[in-house]
């Protein structure tokens, strides 16, 4: 049988037409197969619709399936012809004794998606929902959302039937499909459809033990969105879910983890919470080293969420996130991110030692990310600063060309110098960096170099010559570099007034002609200031840096208030992209969060309220003000500000613009 026909003549369709109408059954069947093959490669065979559906008169199941496939594909193009099939479907549903045929018919019927055909469907559908055979029932319940999508007005009686079935159905598989089906309708409808009661929950929990793996996922996934009435109920559901942690299907395990994590908030018993955490942790770690890297990746993407709410789960487990040499890079990137998040004042040496190894890897992106991570760790922990810098300096010694990692090196070194200006005293970093300044070619890296030259002019040999080099090319530089050059040029002038008078003249001359209004504005400001009182400029530009206190550890990825909703949706696509469902999908509404605050689970204490502890900066004025509302508002604002912090991790795409703007502001700080 030919799959891709070689003879692409016009006569092909006619030939098929003839074969389909042939009296010989085998010939017809071959022709139907050919039609499907054409359909697969994207050829339009809709003209054969009538001839194909005529073949339905045979009771051959294989052929029937193929024809149904064809009909589903073209029913929307040929709604009038599709009507002719209705009788066949109804006959199959009502008369056939073969449950497979009944199920096949109702399944296909639902896929026609032609509004005017659906009214013929409702009655047979009702019959199938109350069919004796569980296979037919499980198929019929899934047919409802198909119809609902196209003709919601026809559905109310069927929906009632579903709710009734929910209460009386005993087959686990049907029950699981039923839950999933009703949830699909809820998404389309935007209204709650499933009415829960303790009896149904009991049934669902029973069904989890009995139905196939996918059904278990549907039920666990659904229960994760349910808010248990009290601690007792939460405990019961958790207890019944625990065995799922040992299921071979990673998604079943993951859904069970999700459900348990969510329900932890409802438990009164602190010891129980601790015990549960101990049980969940090894299960999660197995998933993290899952041998299918795609699945491993999705789990890794969700870890940041778990880490934020349940730091306790990965206590002392940083080794789990060490990269293997042969892993795909998308896994390595994630692990690197997580290692920085998980890094704390106790294990930073371990993490830095590991990162040091990655610097030697071949992939420039990965090395760049590694350098960035080292910089971040140096920023976060005062104690780690020296170690981080010495790793970077060691790397700088071996630099021989303008690679991507080198760009990041300049950027990170600049940030670290800003954190602690005295760094230049402790090692040869300045000298080594100065030797490789020529390798900076990205705007951000160049601007970092310009800053270094200006800031440490006294300690760098030939700093004035270097600056002259930069200024000669001023106009072709990026805005970011131009702004930094201006500031650095002025710094040099303040430090060496006589040596740099020509230089500053040249700088101002070029800068006032810049295409960029910001650059021009700043040029004029400096110009005026310099011509009125250089002493003021000195205080402004060369004052001591604000110091390390302005940089704080903030590895939160999610807003604290979003944590619970995010947790309920753990494992979903939106979560994978570190967003809430309504941020990724316009049509989805997130249900209201009844809980005010998400609890954070740390290793030392049992639980704590997050807001107050996590707030790093506390405004004195705030504390004096009595109105709580205002305080909260300000705190929220602060939180937002922090989210644009320099230290923050990869922002969601939508935030990118804000983020870069903000970054520039930080660099422009004088």
């Amino acid at each position: 049988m030919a799959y891709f026909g070689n003879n692409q003549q016009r006569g092909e369709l006619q030939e098929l037409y003839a074969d389909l109408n042939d009296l010989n059954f085998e010939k017809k069947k071959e022709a139907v197969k050919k039609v499907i093959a054409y359909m697969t490669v994207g050829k339009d065979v809709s003209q054969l619709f009538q001839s194909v559906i005529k073949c339905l008169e045979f009771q051959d199941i294989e052929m029937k399936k193929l024809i149904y496939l064809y009909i589903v594909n073209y029913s929307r193009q040929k709604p009038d012809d599709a009507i002719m099939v209705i009788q066949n479907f109804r006959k199959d549903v009502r008369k056939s004794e073969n449950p497979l045929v009944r199920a096949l018919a109702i399944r296909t019927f639902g896929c026609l998606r032609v509004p005017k055909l659906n009214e013929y469907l409702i009655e047979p559908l009702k019959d199938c929902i109350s069919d004796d055979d569980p296979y037919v029932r499980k198929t019929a319940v899934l047919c409802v959302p198909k119809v609902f999508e196209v003709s919601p007005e026809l559905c109310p009686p069927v929906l009632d039937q579903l709710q009734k079935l929910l209460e009386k159905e005993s087959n686990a598989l049907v029950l699981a499909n039923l839950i999933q089906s009703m949830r699909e309708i809820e998404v389309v409808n935007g209204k709650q459809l499933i009415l829960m009661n303790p009896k149904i929950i009991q049934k669902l929990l029973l069904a989890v033990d009995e139905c196939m793996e996918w059904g278990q996922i549907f039920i666990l996934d659904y229960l994760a969105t349910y808010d248990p009435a009290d601690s007792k109920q939460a405990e019961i559901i958790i207890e019944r879910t625990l065995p799922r942690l040992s299921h071979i299907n990673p998604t079943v395990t993951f859904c069970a983890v999700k459900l348990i994590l969510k329900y932890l908030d409802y438990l009164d018993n602190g010891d129980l919470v601790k015990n549960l955490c101990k049980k969940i942790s090894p299960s999660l770690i197995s998933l993290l080293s899952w041998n299918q890297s795609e699945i491993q990746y999705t789990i890794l993407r969700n870890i940041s969420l778990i880490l934020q709410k349940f730091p306790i789960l990965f206590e002392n487990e940083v080794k789990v996130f060490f990269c293997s040499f042969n892993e795909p890079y998308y896994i390595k990137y994630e692990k690197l991110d997580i290692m920085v998040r998980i890094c704390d004042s106790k294990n930073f040496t371990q993490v830095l030692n590991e990162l040091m190894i990655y610097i030697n890897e071949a992939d420039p992106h990965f090395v760049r990310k590694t350098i960035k991570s080292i910089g971040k760790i140096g920023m976060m922990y005062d104690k780690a600063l020296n170690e981080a810098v010495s790793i970077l300096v060691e790397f700088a010694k071996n630099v021989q060309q303008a690679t991507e990692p080198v760009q990041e090196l300049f950027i990170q070194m600049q940030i670290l110098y800003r954190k602690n200006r005295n760094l230049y005293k402790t090692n040869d970093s300045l000298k080594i960096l100065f030797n490789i300044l020529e390798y900076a070619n990205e705007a951000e890296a160049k601007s970092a170099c310009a800053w270094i030259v200006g800031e440490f002019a006294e300690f760098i040999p030939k700093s004035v010559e270097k600056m002259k080099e930069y200024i000669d090319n001023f106009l072709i530089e990026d805005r970011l570099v131009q702004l930094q050059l201006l500031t650095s040029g002025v710094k040099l002038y303040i430090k060496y007034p006589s040596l740099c008078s020509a230089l500053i003249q040249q700088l101002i001359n070029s800068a006032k002609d810049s295409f960029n209004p910001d650059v021009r504005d700043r040029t004029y400001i400096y110009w005026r200031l310099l011509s009125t009182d250089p002493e003021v400029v000195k205080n402004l530009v060369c004052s001591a840096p604000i110091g390390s206190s302005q940089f704080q550890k903030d590895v939160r990825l999610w807003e604290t208030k979003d944590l619970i909703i995010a947790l309920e949706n753990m494992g979903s696509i939106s979560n994978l992209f570190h967003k809430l469902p309504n941020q990724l999908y316009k049509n989805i509404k997130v249900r209201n969060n009844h809980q005010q605050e998400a609890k954070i689970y740390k290793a030392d204490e049992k639980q704590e309220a997050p807001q107050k502890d996590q707030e790093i900066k506390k405004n004195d004025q705030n504390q004096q003000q009595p109105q709580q509302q205002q305080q909260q508002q300000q705190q929220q604002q602060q939180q937002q500000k922090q989210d644009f912090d320099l230290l923050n991790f990869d922002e969601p795409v939508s935030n990118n613009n804000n983020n870069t703007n903000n970054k520039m502001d930080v660099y422009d700080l004088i």
Partner: protein
Amino acid sequence: MISSLSFINQKGEILIYRVYKDDISRSEITQFCAKMIATKENKESPIINIDQTSFIHISIKDIIILATTKTDVNVAMVLEFLYQLSKICKSYFQGILDENCIKKNFVLIYEILDEVLDYGIPQIADPNILQKFIQEGGIQQETSMNIERLRQLTVTITGAVSWRPTGLHYEKNELYLDIIESVNLLISAKDTVLRAEVVGSIELKSKLTGMPECQIGMNDKLLMGKQARTTKQNGGIAIDDMKFHPCVGLPKFEKDRTITFIPPDGHFQLMSYRISENINIPFKVNVIYSDISENKLEIRLKIKSIYDKNVYGTNIAVKVPVPKNTVNVISATALGKAKHEIEEQSVIWRIKKLQGDVETSLRCDISLGATNKEQTWSKPPLKMEFQIPMFTSSGLRVRFLKVMEKGAYKTNKWIRYLTRGGEYLHRL
């Protein structure tokens, strides 16, 4: 849920295309294909989101299986489903899934796709069950006409023990048990163990009559702690985590840690486990790189097998990385053969068989060509592959395997152990 499924070949052509929901167009898939072919690299994540459409794919050799969706589905579930789908296809096509057999069997694949997903929601994805009612050339006429049989079939499919058909009969009841362990090891350049972990699986081949219930017991520390007679034996080993085939009664395991199951027919993976404590590292490796001169490098490598004397390691391969500009390698060893493989950028030392508690060594003199850059060579880790029959790195042992069925029921049982190298790496 899932809007469409496609099988795509290396050239980016769609081989199979099945739509489950109406919200996706073929052109979106072709765009994705073009993109896939253009990048090809392994860096892209397996999930791409373009304008609210998510493309989730896995690669099985040259075939890409792609699912698309416009809703906020559970990604891990879709991925796991795609993997199971590939397994189903392989079970139908004698373990092969390539372009040829897809083209040859497209009718059958469409039939399978019709059954495994409904409205994009995963349904029956167990190859054993599917084989019962989807077969090449349709199911046997006899079955399809016999309504009673069909009823039985649908009850089995939707029932609680869906993985095992009723009425199986064998002349001899046989049960084959394989315990296979992969050792993942990471040792730093300073010779400290950064990570040692065993990922193991227990695989069964069952040829049993009727509906027997089986119970398996291992030297699991927690289980043996529960049973009183542990005093004589050593305390057993700590298993971090276990994952079971659906046939294992999980509530019972959760309650008293006994593993009971009604096995599927034929070959299946009963469980997988992970152990990170007290791993017996099978080899001690000692390697020294010394630069003799600008274009000469010497590598001395020593390996000691640290398993029992009457155990033999087989098919051992040590991949010793060498610089890119290696021109010639002269190697000397008492055991096995060492060869410079340019594509791997390493000298691969292969030893067919190595007894326990034996030390052997390799010496390589390497001549280097001239390089234009004076960049220091950063050595990738040294990798080892091996298989050691009748040895488990974790020390796991099966203590008993009971088969319980009414009447005089006799079962012949065989058991094998194997440890092999997983990610077995020494940093240099």
